[in-house]
Structures are given as C-alpha cells and as structure tokens.
C-alpha cells in the first residue's frame, strides 16, 4: 500500500508541475509576440520557411474544370494550378516542387489559418470580410469573374422569370449571400437548396430537384463543358446573361505573412506584366540573357537595367526576399498570363471563354499590373 501511495503523490505532483509550466508559457507567449512585433508582424517567417522547405503547398479545387480539376487519375490541373507552379518556380526555384491539397469551400479558410497549406489558389473571391474577419491577404486578382445562373435550356430566358424557383447552391460561399441579395432586391421569392459539394448538387440538379444552379460564371462554364452526353451534353444547359455579382478571384495567404504575401503578389503582377511587355515562355530565356536595352523587361527578369545616366547597368532587387531572376523560372514554366489563360480557359479549350474583362487594359480589359521596379 505504501508503494501505490507514493506513486499517486508523484503523479499528482508531476501533473501539477506540467500545468504550472504550461501556465507560464501562456503568459510568456504574450511577451514573445510583442518581441517579434519589433522585427515584423507576429509570425512572419513563412516566406523563409517555404524557401528552406523547398516545396510550396497550395490549397486548390479539384472539382472545377479549367481552374482546378482532377480528371480521375489524381493529376489535378488548371488555371489556378499553373499559378501555384509559377509561385513555386519563383520562390523555391522548381515549378514542380508543389504539394496540392484539394479543399472544399467550407474548410478553405480554416485550413489556411491552421497552416495546412501556404497559399490558397482556389477560385476564391476577394471580399472585405474575408480580409477582415478571416484574416486573409489577397494578392492581385487573377480572374475577374461574376456570379451567374445556369438553367436547363429553354426553361428560362432571364432570372426575372425565376420567381419562386428552387435554386441549388453550395454552402459557405459568397454565392449564397449574393443569391439572397439579388432575389431580395428584385422582390422575387426563391428556395435555396444548399449542398456541401458540387457532386451531390449535380445529382440533384440532374433529377430536376432545382430549377437553377448558381455559382461563378467560370465554374458554371467548366461544369457545363463537362456535362455528360447521356444527360444531354453541354447544349442542354444555358448560362443566363445576367451578372448577379462581381467575383474577383485572387490567390490568398494569411495576412500575418506580409513578406510571403508580397512575393505572391509580385509573381501574379509579373505574369500579367510579362504579357504586357511581350515576354513569353518561348523568348523569356533569350530576353533574360539580353533584354536589348528594354528597361522594363530587364527589371522584370532580373537582368541588368541600363542606367539612363550612362552608368553601369545593374539588376534591380525589389527586396522581396526572392532571387533576382524569380520571374524567369515562373514564365518559362507556365508562360505569361495570356498563355496560362489560353491553355486552360481560352477559346481553344472545353470552357471556351473569351478574355472579356480579363484582357489586358491595353486590349479593352481590366488586367493591369503594377510596374516591377
């Protein structure tokens, strides 16, 4: 009995000690946070962490053709995936050093906050509350989208005819809120049928459980393009013209990771700028070696920039924590913005989207990069 008793005392004391230590950590933690605040925001080392790790982890979609889609063999590809490759090429130097984590709409921000991945490139709309409450920092918009309504061909020609309809929508998206607002503004009744994921929604839509399917126009275009022939194929569906809301899709990172966010932002801008300057995956290596006196191109590619005063040409370091030629690897891997768009979303793909407002500002669209200098 004495032996058992001593064990009990030791155990209780040990637990006490652990708890006491734990308590101290809680209080010290506040001081540590303030200490870091001098150097950068609390917890701002993600960029260095990614560089050291040598791999970039991206949160992506695997159910939207064109943007992030798994055709069934486990190789997820799409518009957003190419951006992930570009980020990897720029930050760690290898476009294939990526870990793709498919994530659904409900969990994407929680997973980002938990550090399940570094950057979210998953056709995510930039909104004020996501920046505020969810703590997401959005880089430059990589696709200007809008919310639209898809219906069975011939049933409706305009959303105004859809009073009282059942509308299928996925939960946890801006789509849900916009749907409610849009119909309320027009004094139309509707019944939202809210699913967790697209596959179940699609089954319900096929069985005519609902009259309309609302989501981003690009998503709907992708889904329509892949509509099975035994259900009527793409011609049996129509995407109505009305734009229900603005959906600027942008890559997102934690807003406590300023350096990392700046790097991501620079890459997106760089890809758009490359198209503006005529730098493509075919000529990027040559232009990097010899920019031919073009200052902006030299700046972009990390080549020596001619000095207007006639002094020595030096490459520009933007102070982002990246290699000087970070854009070269990115552009040679996936091409400039126009090439990425054409490869996954353009008129020659199943989605067949026009550049529309995603064209460069010099071509009538609104894609406008900040100068990299």
């Amino acid at each position, binding site marked *: 009995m004495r032996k058992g008793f001593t064990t009990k005392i030791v155990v209780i004391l040990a637990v006490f000690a652990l*708890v006491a230590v734990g308590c101290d950590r809680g209080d010290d933690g506040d001081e540590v946070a303030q200490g870091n605040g001098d150097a950068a925001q*609390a917890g701002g080392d993600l960029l260095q962490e990614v560089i050291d790790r040598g791999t970039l982890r991206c949160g992506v979609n695997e159910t939207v053709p064109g943007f992030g889609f798994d055709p069934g063999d486990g190789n997820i590809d799409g518009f957003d995936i190419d951006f992930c490759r570009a980020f990897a090429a720029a930050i760690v130097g290898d476009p294939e050093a990526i870990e793709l984590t498919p994530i659904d709409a409900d969990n994407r921000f929680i997973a980002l906050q938990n550090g399940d991945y570094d950057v979210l490139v998953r056709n995510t709309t930039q909104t004020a509350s996501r920046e505020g409450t969810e703590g997401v920092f959005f880089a430059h918009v990589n696709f200007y989208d809008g919310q639209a309504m898809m219906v069975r061909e011939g049933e409706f020609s305009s959303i105004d005819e859809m009073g009282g309809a059942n509308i299928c929508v996925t939960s946890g*998206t801006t789509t849900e809120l916009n749907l*409610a607002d849009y119909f309320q503004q027009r004094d139309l009744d509707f019944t939202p049928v809210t*699913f967790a994921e697209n596959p*179940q929604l699609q*089954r319900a839509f096929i*069985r005519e459980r609902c009259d309309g399917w609302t989501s981003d126009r690009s998503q709907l275009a992708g889904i329509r393009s892949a509509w099975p022939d035994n259900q009527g194929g793409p011609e049996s569906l129509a995407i109505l013209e009305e734009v229900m809301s603005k959906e600027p899709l942008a890559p997102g990172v934690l807003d*406590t990771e300023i350096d990392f966010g700046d790097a991501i932002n620079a890459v997106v801008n760089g890809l758009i700028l490359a198209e503006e300057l005529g730098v493509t995956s075919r000529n990027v290596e040559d232009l990097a070696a010899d920019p031919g006196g073009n200052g902006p191109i030299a700046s972009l590619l990390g080549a020596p920039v001619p000095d207007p005063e006639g002094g020595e040409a030096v490459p520009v370091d933007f102070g982002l924590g990246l290699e000087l030629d970070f854009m070269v690897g990115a552009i040679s891997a996936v091409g400039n913005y126009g090439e990425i768009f054409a490869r996954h979303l353009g008129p020659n793909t199943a989605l067949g989207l026009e550049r529309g407002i995603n064209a460069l500002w010099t071509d009538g669209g609104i894609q406008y990069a900040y100068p990299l200098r």
Partner: protein
Amino acid sequence: MASSARSVRPPLWRDVRVLRVAGQVAFVLVVFFVLREMYLNATFQLGQRGRDLSYDFLDSRAGFGVKEHFIDYSPNNSFWRVFWVAVTNALAVTGVGIVLATVLGTFLGIARLSPNWLLRKIGQGYVETIRNIPALVQIIFWYTAVILAIPRLENSISIFGFAYISNRGAAVPTLRGGADFGPWGLFVVAAVVAAFFVRRWRTKIFDDTGRPHYRFLWSTGTFLVVAALGYVVLGDAFTIELPEIGLRNLVGGIQVSPEFAGVLVGLVVYTAAFIGEIVRGSILAVSKGQKEAAEALGLRPSQQLRYVVLPQAMRIALPSITNQYLNFWKNTSLGFFIAYPEIVNITRTMTNQAGHELEIFSLLIVIYLGVSLAISLFMNILNRGVTLRGATR
C-alpha cells in the same frame, strides 16, 4: 497499545481522511488549470492572427436564406436566429423520427421472435443488413436513389387528388382555421371529455352485465358527433386546404421537403434496426415463467405479449433505447450531406460568412450536449417511474 489506538492520529500525510479530501481538491485544481490553459492558448493563438474571441457577431445580419424553417426566418434576421432555425429543424426530425423508429423497432423485435418463419427471416435480414451499413451511406441512398428518383413536379404522384408526392416534396391537406376556430377548439375539448365519459359508461355496463362494451366505437363516435356539431353550429370553424401543383413547387397543405424525408427515412430505418435488437433482447430477458403463467391464465399469444411480456420488456429496454435516441439526435448532423438545413449545415455557412469558428464550435458543442442531456434526463425520469418498487438498482 490497544487502549491508546483510537486517540493517536496518524500523521497528516498518512491520514486517509485528509488524503481523500486532498485528492479531490487536487483533481479539481488540475481540471481547472487544464481548462484555463486551453482558454489562454486559444486567445493567444487568435491574438497572434489579429482576431479575438467574442460572441458579438451573433447579432449581425445573417444574409443567407434557409429553405425550410419551423420558426419564422428571413435573411435579414441575425446569426443567433438562424442558429435556432437550425436547432428547431434538427429537433423536428428527431422528434418525429424517435417515435417512428421506436414503433418500427418494436415491431421488428417482435417479428424476429415470431413463430412465423418468413417474418423471422425478414426481420433478421433487415437487421443484419441495416446495422452494418454506415448511417451516412443509408441517408444518401434514400435521398439520391429513392427520393430524388420520384417523378418530377409536373408528374407528381397524386393520391386521389388530395395529396401529392414529387421529388420537390410531398403535401397533404391541412386545416386552415377560420374566424370561429377558437370556439370550435372548445367544442373539440368538450368532445374529448364526452368521449371519455362515454367510454367509462360503456365499461361500467360491461362490468355490470357482461354485455360487450364496444367502447372504442362508442367513444370515437361521440367525439366525431360533438366535433361535427360544433362545425355545423359555428359556421366558419375551418376550411380544408388542398395542396396543388404550383409552377415550381407544391402549393398549400402541410409540406414535407425531400431533404427532411431523406434524413427521416434514413435515420428511422437505421435506428429501428438497433432498437429492434434491443427490444428482442429485452423480451428474451423477461423470465420465461411470466409467459407460461400468462398462457396458463388462458391469454392468447398476442395478449400475453401485450399485457404481460412487453410491459416488462420495455422496462428492461429503456436505458438502451435512451442510447439510441441520443444517437438519432446526433446523427441528424449527417443531414448536411443531403442539403437538409440542420445544425452542422447552417453553422458551416455561419462560419464561412462570419468567421469566429471557435465560438460557433462552442455553440455547436453546447447545443448537442444540452439536448442530449435533456433527452437522457427525460428518459431517466421515465425509467425511475417504471422501475419496480424495492428492486435492486
């Protein structure tokens, strides 16, 4: 030594009474510090991300619609309101489902003990299949393969023109109270009282003279006559509202959505399998002598079951059935996958629109725990009510 033993106290660190109390105190302190540590850690981590722990968001406008709700709701209501919409939705399916599952389960349990070979085998097949397939799979099956496969709205199945079933919902006629609905309610109460007394009168006649009482027919007849009388006298007691096929949905009557039906049918079928086994075990647990004594008294097998065996069996089954009720309540969370707006579904949307995952999670925990405890409490009261007096616990 013997005479002084009682007056000598052992040293504190060996005194059992002191140690017992010290142990309890130590345990309480440990629990307290662990909880405090969790709280501090949470606020610290959130603070690092520039966010705070607060429930104020519950007053903000929700902004999203919910397709079925048993309490009034519009997208302009607050998050707090929509949370309660979710809770009432889950409670509704639980309330109805528990009753149906118990009835079905009891029949199932009795069927498995039937002398009829076919009934026994059907019961066995049912239990063995249903018990071994996950509840989620069953719910999705019922919804996708059965309910969504029901004809579309324009081709709704019509039941004599009174009720309709389509894959957008089912609707049955309902009463719409007119101006005299209140007074008619008094007539209904009077009808119930009259029926009660008629039943007593007929039973008395049976006791006194042995003539068959037919008391059920008499009392039901009385009830209907008085209620009809009330309807005729008052004029505008109620109207019968028949459902119709509308443009996009069924219109009128009491409606059941396909999602509600999917969760209900899926969980009732699933839980009934377990309740069936519990009932079967409880019937077998009633001592054989009871059945034999009942038989000796001349009761038919159905009467033996109804008056002697089943009441005792249900007493034994109560604690296990309570478990199944709690499972039913928690399994309503699976309704998320078929778009039923229950608690998990709506809190997921709330999290995405408002953030504050930790606070919303705490609400989730509290509500599931709270209702589970309430169900347990109620069942325990029931249990105590039927426990044999003087029985060992």
